[in-house]
């Protein structure tokens, strides 16, 4: 049988890869993909803990996280489309109007 620590370790690695992607990538869509990867790493933690403790609550939370991710993808991609219309670029270094 696969121990619980393997699942949690894999989840930590995937989350780290996603976080590194957010820091080193400059394309807004790729950064967004890395955020989805981090959401999925947390989902793996919730599902595996739910399975190992026999509590259905974790899987319900993953279900809610998936709906939030779908809503986030729709709104985020709409923002990206409107940024691209205004600036003809998706480089996040060029979108710095809110910077002090």
């Amino acid at each position, binding site marked *: 049988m696969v121990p*619980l620590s393997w699942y949690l370790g894999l989840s930590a690695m995937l989350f780290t890869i996603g976080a590194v992607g957010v820091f080193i990538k*400059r394309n807004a869509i790729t950064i967004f*993909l890395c955020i989805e990867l981090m959401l999925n790493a947390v989902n793996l933690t919730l599902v595996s803990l739910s399975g190992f403790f026999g509590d259905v609550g974790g*899987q319900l939370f*993953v279900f809610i996280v998936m709906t939030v991710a779908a809503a986030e993808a*729709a709104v985020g991609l709409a923002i990206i489309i409107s940024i*691209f219309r205004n600036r003809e670029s998706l480089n996040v270094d060029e979108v710095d109007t809110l910077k002090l």
Partner: protein
Amino acid sequence: MWHEKVLFIIFAVIAIASALNILLQRSPLYSALSLIGTLLSLSALYLTVHAQFIAAVQIVVYAGAIMVLFIFVIMLLNVPKDQPQIEKQKGLRYLAIPFAGLMIAEMFYVLRPIRLTTLPIQPGNPEQAVGTTWSIGTALFTDYLLPFEVTSVLILMALVGAMVLARREGD
């Protein structure tokens, strides 16, 4: 039960390799396609912890709906390739490997107490075990009814928000 470990290792390696491929690709389209590989192998891993419903939803909603939306937007915008990064603080690269090693050591230390915890055998009717559609549906429409209903408001807000944001000025 060595074959379960082999299955886990296969899918874990696929998940991590495609996750790293997201970072290595310059084109966002290839990054999106390798994220689909990660999502599919995570779905297989959900099956190994007896979360059948979530595994199916992962493929239908994530790999199906959300990633199609991403690829649609990437194709629509004809996104340019990622520019090579400019390094601002070169000294930090020598600190990165010791810090990464420290974090991995910390992870092993934290996970040590549960290194032998394995999946318990669930008592009772297997058709009503945790992770089946029956168990998820029963909990969702009894104890968790309010979060479920609030989710519909969230989806409506996202729908209106996406339409307002992506609309052209003056329409």
